[in-house]
């Protein structure tokens, strides 16, 4: 079956994390197109650019220079144009407070950065699969909350 690809953008200032992330997606069954930016400011410039095809999912690191994850999330949520984008927080922290705060601000997914590549692959596969169900079965994205 010919599926459209899922477009994914990662904002993360750590180069190793970005590379792991891209590698992990290459091994998944669902077609994905992944691009990365180095911080929140770059992310907003990217999605605001008129030539950009908006991603289906944005992965946001919380600790980034220039514009951090929380600030980026707030800005994204201010603009109606971005309301269909699923936001996944991708962070080393996993305090219940952080998780709940970002969900309240409109994030859909919260992932604690896993310590090894295999778990990263597993987690990303799960996210893309669940997102696919939301995408193809007309589920209500407003109720899409997932913590991994």
């Amino acid at each position: 079956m010919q599926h459209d690809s899922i477009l994914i953008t990662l904002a993360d200032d750590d180069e190793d994390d970005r590379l792991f992330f891209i590698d992990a997606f290459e091994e998944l069954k669902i077609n994905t197109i992944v691009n990365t930016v180095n911080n929140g400011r770059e992310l907003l410039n990217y999605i605001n650019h008129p030539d950009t095809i908006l991603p289906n999912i944005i992965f946001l690191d919380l600790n980034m220079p220039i514009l951090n994850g929380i600030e980026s999330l707030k800005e994204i949520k201010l603009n109606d144009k971005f309301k269909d984008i699923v936001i996944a927080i991708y962070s080393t922290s996993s305090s219940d407070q952080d998780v709940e705060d970002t969900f309240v601000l409109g994030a859909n997914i919260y992932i604690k950065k896993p310590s090894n590549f295999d778990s990263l692959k597993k987690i990303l596969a799960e996210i893309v699969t669940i997102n696919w169900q939301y995408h193809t079965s007309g589920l209500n994205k407003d109720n899409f909350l997932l913590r991994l």
Partner: protein
Amino acid sequence: MRVFIKFDFNTICNKILEEKLDEIQIKHRILGFGEVEFLEKVSNEKLNLFSQLLNNYGIEIVENQKTILIQKIKDAIVDMVFNEDSTINVKSSVYLSEKLNHSYGYLSNIFSEVTYTSIENFIIMQKIEYTKQLIINNQLSLTEIAFKLNYSSVAHLSSQFKNTTGITPSAFQRIINKRREIASKK
């Protein structure tokens, strides 16, 4: 007299596709490996006609049939989960295979192949989605929701909710309420 004939199936099939598509006037491109691209919007009537013409040659539009069946499975599941009358005590595998006239094994295979998830997981997901809606509507307690959705206990529903979403039903409710507060302040 006898002659021996050598077939090239690919050429034959492509030729048939070509002729039939021209016959019913669909602009197209034949991509090989059994794939045809329509270069214009094709009405359902035309598509059915095309499908019938091909059936005479033992050729079937595969993906389309599959997609239709997947949609039917999904519809049946949603109906089963969301429709209160159908909370009859029938196993979902029996329900689906009777409703769709295929063996459960067949349905289950084709479903996993196309949707990347299993029927079982899809049912759980739909039940949790329904639970979320009911939580948001604020009219039923979690115990009542568990009963309505045929869970053996509220603990079972809670743990399935937590397993599926990573958060508890009460955290979900709290988050949605806070989001509403923020939205109402805007």
